[in-house]
C-alpha cells in the first residue's frame, strides 16, 4: 500500500539473529527437544516416522508442514484405501485429460475444447464465520478450476442447514448465502443451481459445498509439476497474513500453554476483487505460454503448493522465505508456511519469461514475487529436496515427496451402526396415508410449504445467473445448462444432488440414488452424461460406524458409476462433520456433467406452451 512492493533486491541480505529461530542446525543439535506434535494432531508413530525420514527431529517449520500435509484433510489417510475404487472400477474413458489427483478433472468435449469441474466443501469455516467461510469456499474451488488452465464459467452451491426455525440457522444461513453470492457475483460467475436442505442433523455442522465449472482450449491444459531445474518459483496474488493458522499456532508458544491472543487462528477473509484479477492475469499468462507449472494455494497454503509441485516433478526446490510479501511483518517462518491467506497461486516460470510474467501481473494489479527456484536431484538419482531458508538460515530441508506421497494410510475399523436395523425396520409403508380428498389436499399443501420443498427464489435471486451471457438454464430447472461455445452451440448441463436421509438408511444405495438423481436431471435436459464429481460429507472417521457408512457410500458410488459407464473425475472428502458423538447423516453429494452438442435443443422442465395446439399429452416413463 502506498509504497511499492519490495523487489528481490530490496531484501536485506544481513542474516537475522538466529537465536530463537528453530533452524535445521538447531534441530540437529537438540535432538531431545520436546515438540508439541500431539497438539498438532500427529500421533506418536507419525512423529517417529518424521524423525526417521529426516534422520533428526523436525524443525518447528518442518513439524508444521508435516502436521498439515499428513492431516486427514490433505493426506486422505482414512479415505484413500476406499477412494481407489473410483479409478479401479471406472469405465475406460478417452475423454479424460486429467483425473483424480489433479486440482480438478478435465474432460475433452470437442476437438478444441475441454471442461473441468469439481465440488468441494467448506463446512467448518462456514459454521464459524458463515459469510467469509462460504465466500472463501467459492474462492477456493474457483482457483482449483483456474489452476487447470480453464476460465471459470459457473458455480453451484449444494447447501445443508439445521432446522429452518432454529435460531442458529438464522445466523448461519443468511451469512452463507450472502457470502456465496458476494463472492460469486463479484467474480462474474453465474450461479446455475444448487440445493438447500434443512435437517436437524446439520445444526452444528452445516454443509457448504461449492462446485465450479471451467472451460479451456485443449492445448491450454496446465499441470502442477515444478519441472525444469533453474526455473523460478513465483508467488502470485494477495499478501500472506495470519489467516487460518489453525493448530499451527500451538507452535508459537514454547511452553504450549495459552498461545497469546494475537496468535489465535484468524478467520480467512476473502477478497473477490483480487481473485477476479488473479483469474484474468493467469489466463493471460497461459495464453502467452509463460508458465511451466501452476498450483493454487488452498487450505494448506504454501506448504502444500511447494511440496506438491516439487513432488509432482520429482525435483527439489530452494525457497527464500523472506521474499514472501507479508501483511504482518512479525510473521514467523512456520506461520508463513501454514498461512491460509486466500487469492494466491504458485507459478513455475522459465527464467527468461520472468519479466513477462511480472509485467502481466502488474498490468492486472496483482502482486507477484519470485520466492525460489527449482533444483535438480542432488546425486542425480535421489529425488530433489525442498530447502527453505529464512534470512539465510535453513529452516526446512525435506524430501518433498515425504510430505505428499508418503503420508500415513489407515484402514480404519468399520462397523455397521448399531441402530441401523431398527431404522430400517421403521418403514414408510406403515405410515398412515391421506385417504380423503381433504386430507390429500392438506398433505400436498403442507409438503409444498415445507422448507425443504418450498420455492428457493429467496435464495437464488441473491445470485447473478446472467453474467457472461451463456446461461441457458438455471433455477428453477433441474440442471444448470451453459453454452460453452458460441460458434458451435456446444453446451454442458450439470446437476448436483444428495440425500442424507436415504444415505443414513442405506449408504450404499443412498450414494447410488444421489448419482442416479443427478444423472437423470442432466439427461432430461437432453444432455449426454459424461463425468462425475463428488463431495463426501461424513462424521468422524475414527468412529467405526461412520467409517462403515463412508466405505459403503464410496462402494455404492463407484458401482453406480461403473453401471452407468461414467467416471468420477475428482472430488473432495469432508470428515469430522460431527458434534460430540453425533455425526451428521452420511451425505454424499454428487455432481454429474453432461454434453449437449446443440444447446438450443435443450429441454426445459416446464410444459412448453405450443401455439396452435389446444392440449399436450403427458407420458410417465419408467416403473
Amino acid at each position: 500500500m502506498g509504497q511499492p512492493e519490495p523487489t528481490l533486491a530490496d531484501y536485506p541480505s544481513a542474516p537475522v539473529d538466529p537465536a530463537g529461530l528453530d533452524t535445521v542446525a538447531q534441530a540437529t543439535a537438540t535432538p531431545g527437544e520436546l515438540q508439541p506434535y500431539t497438539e498438532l494432531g500427529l500421533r506418536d508413530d507419525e512423529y517417529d516416522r518424521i524423525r526417521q525420514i529426516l534422520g533428526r527431529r523436525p524443525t518447528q517449520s518442518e513439524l508444521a508442514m508435516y502436521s498439515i500435509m499428513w492431516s486427514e484433510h490433505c493426506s486422505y489417510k482414512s479415505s484413500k484405501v476406499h477412494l481407489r475404487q473410483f479409478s479401479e472400477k471406472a469405465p475406460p474413458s478417452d475423454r479424460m485429460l486429467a483425473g483424480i489427483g489433479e486440482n480438478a478433472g478435465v474432460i475433452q468435449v470437442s476437438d478444441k475444447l475441454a471442461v473441468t469441474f469439481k465440488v468441494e466443501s467448506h463446512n467448518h469455516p462456514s459454521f464459524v464465520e458463515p459469510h467469509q467461510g462460504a465466500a472463501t469456499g467459492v474462492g477456493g474451488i474457483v482457483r482449483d478450476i483456474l489452476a487447470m488452465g480453464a476460465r471459470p464459467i459457473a458455480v453451484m452451491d449444494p447447501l445443508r442447514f439445521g432446522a429452518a426455525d432454529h435460531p442458529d440457522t438464522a445466523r448461519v444461513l443468511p451469512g452463507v448465502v450472502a457470502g456465496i453470492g458476494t463472492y460469486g457475483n463479484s467474480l462474474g460467475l453465474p450461479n446455475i443451481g444448487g440445493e438447500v436442505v434443512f435437517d436437524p442433523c446439520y445444526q452444528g455442522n452445516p454443509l457448504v459445498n461449492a462446485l465450479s465449472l471451467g472451460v479451456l482450449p485443449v492445448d491450454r491444459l496446465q499441470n502442477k509439476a515444478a519441472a525444469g531445474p533453474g526455473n523460478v518459483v513465483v508467488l502470485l496474488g494477495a499478501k500472506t497474513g495470519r489467516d487460518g493458522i489453525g493448530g499451527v499456532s500451538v507452535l508459537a508458544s514454547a511452553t504450549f500453554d495459552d498461545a497469546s491472543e494475537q496468535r489465535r487462528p484468524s478467520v480467512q477473509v476473502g477478497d473477490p476483487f483480487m481473485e477476479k484479477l488473479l483469474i484474468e492475469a493467469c489466463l493471460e499468462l497461459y495464453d502467452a505460454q509463460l508458465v511451466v507449472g501452476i498450483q493454487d494455494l488452498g487450505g494448506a497454503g504454501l506448504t502444500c503448493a511447494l511440496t506438491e509441485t516439487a513432488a509432482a516433478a520429482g525435483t527439489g526446490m530452494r525457497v527464500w522465505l523472506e521474499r514472501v510479501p507479508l501483511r504482518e511483518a512479525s510473521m514467523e517462518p512456520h506461520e508463513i508456511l501454514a498461512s491460509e491467506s486466500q487469492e494466491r497461486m504458485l507459478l513455475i516460470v522459465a527464467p527468461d519469461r520472468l519479466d513477462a510474467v511480472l509485467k502481466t501481473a502488474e498490468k492486472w494489479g496483482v502482486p507477484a514475487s519470485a520466492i525460489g527456484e527449482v533444483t535438480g536431484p542432488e546425486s542425480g538419482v535421489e529425488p530433489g529436496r525442498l530447502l527453505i531458508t529464512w534470512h539465510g538460515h535453513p529452516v526446512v530441508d525435506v524430501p518433498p515427496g515425504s510430505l505428499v506421497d508418503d503420508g500415513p494410510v489407515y484402514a480404519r475399523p468399520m462397523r455397521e451402526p448399531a441402530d441401523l436395523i431398527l431404522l430400517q425396520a421403521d418403514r414408510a409403508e406403515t405410515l398412515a396415508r391421506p385417504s380423503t380428498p381433504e386430507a390429500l389436499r392438506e398433505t400436498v399443501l403442507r409438503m409444498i410449504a415445507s422448507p425443504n420443498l418450498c420455492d428457493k427464489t429467496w435464495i437464488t435471486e441473491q445470485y447473478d445467473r446472467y453474467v457472461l451471457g451463456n446461461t441457458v438454464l438455471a433455477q428453477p430447472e433441474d440442471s444448470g445448462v451453459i453454452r460453452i461455445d458460441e460458434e458451435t452451440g456446444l453446451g454442458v448441463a450439470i446437476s448436483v444432488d444428495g440425500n442424507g436421509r436415504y444415505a443414513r438408511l442405506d449408504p450404499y444405495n443412498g450414494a447410488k440414488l444421489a448419482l442416479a438423481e443427478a444423472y437423470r436431471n442432466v439427461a432430461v435436459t437432453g444432455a449426454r452424461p459424461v463425468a462425475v464429481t463428488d463431495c463426501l460429507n461424513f462424521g468422524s472417521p475414527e468412529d467405526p460406524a461412520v467409517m462403515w457408512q463412508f466405505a459403503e457410500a464410496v462402494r455404492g458410488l463407484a458401482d453406480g458409476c461403473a453401471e452407468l459407464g461414467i467416471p468420477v473425475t475428482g472430488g473432495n472428502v469432508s470428515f469430522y462433520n460431527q458434534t460430540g458423538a453425533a455425526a451428521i447423516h452420511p451425505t454424499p453429494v454428487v455432481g454429474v456433467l453432461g454434453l449437449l452438442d446443440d444447446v438450443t435443443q435443450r429441454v426445459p422442465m416446464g410444459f412448453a406452451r405450443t401455439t396452435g395446439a389446444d392440449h399436450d399429452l403427458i407420458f410417465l416413463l419408467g416403473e
Partner: protein
Amino acid sequence: MTARIGVVTFPGSLDDRDAARAVRLAGAEAVSLWHDDPDLRGVDGVVLPGGFSYGDYLRCGAIARFAPVMETIAAGARAGLPVLGICNGFQILCEAHLLPGALTRNQHLHFRNRDQWLRIESAGTAWTNTFQPGQEILIPVKNGEGCYVADERTLDELEATGRVVARYVHGNPNGSQRDIAGITNEAGNVVGLMPHPEHAVEALTGPSLDGLGFFTSILKHLAGAPA
C-alpha cells in the same frame, strides 16, 4: 461504415464481454477500451459495463471514476459523445458527476437478480430512440446498490425535463426513488441504466430480446447524426 462502440474494461468489470456481444448483435463493431489507457480509439460511442470495478469497495464506482480512460470519456460526453452506463457504469457516471444523484444500497439490503419490467419514459435519447414512449420491456436487473436517490429538486427537474429514461413497473426491485431505473443528461447523449439490457439480446439466454433496442438505438442515432 459500421459504427464503432467502445466497451470499457475496468479491473473488476464483469459484463464487458456481454456488452460487446450485444453491440455486435445490434450490428456494430465492439472495440475494447482499457481503464488505464485514455485513448478512445476513435469510437462513436461508449458503454460502461456492469460489474464491480475495483471491487466496488468504498462506494460503487468511486474509484473507477479516477481511471485515465474516464477523463477522456467525461470530456467526450460533455462534447456529445454517446455514453451508456449499465449498472456499475451508471454508478460510475453518477460518481463522475456526468449524471445527477447517486445509487445507494438496495433498501432490502440484498443483492437481487430477477427479470424486471420497465417502462420506457423517454425515447428521445441516443440510447432509447427505437423504443416507443410508454413501451414496457422485460430485462434482467441484478444489483446490490441500485437504489437511485437525489434531492427533491433534482428529481422534480429530471421529471419536468423528460430525463427519466426508464421506470420500474410491476414492482420496484431496490427502493429507487420514484421507481427510477434510468436517467439521462440534458443533451440526451449520456444515459445511466440500472438493469441489464445486454442480458436480453438472445432468445436462448435472456428473458426477452428487449435489451437489443438500446444498442440498435445508438446505431440509429449515429446514422442520423450530422457527420
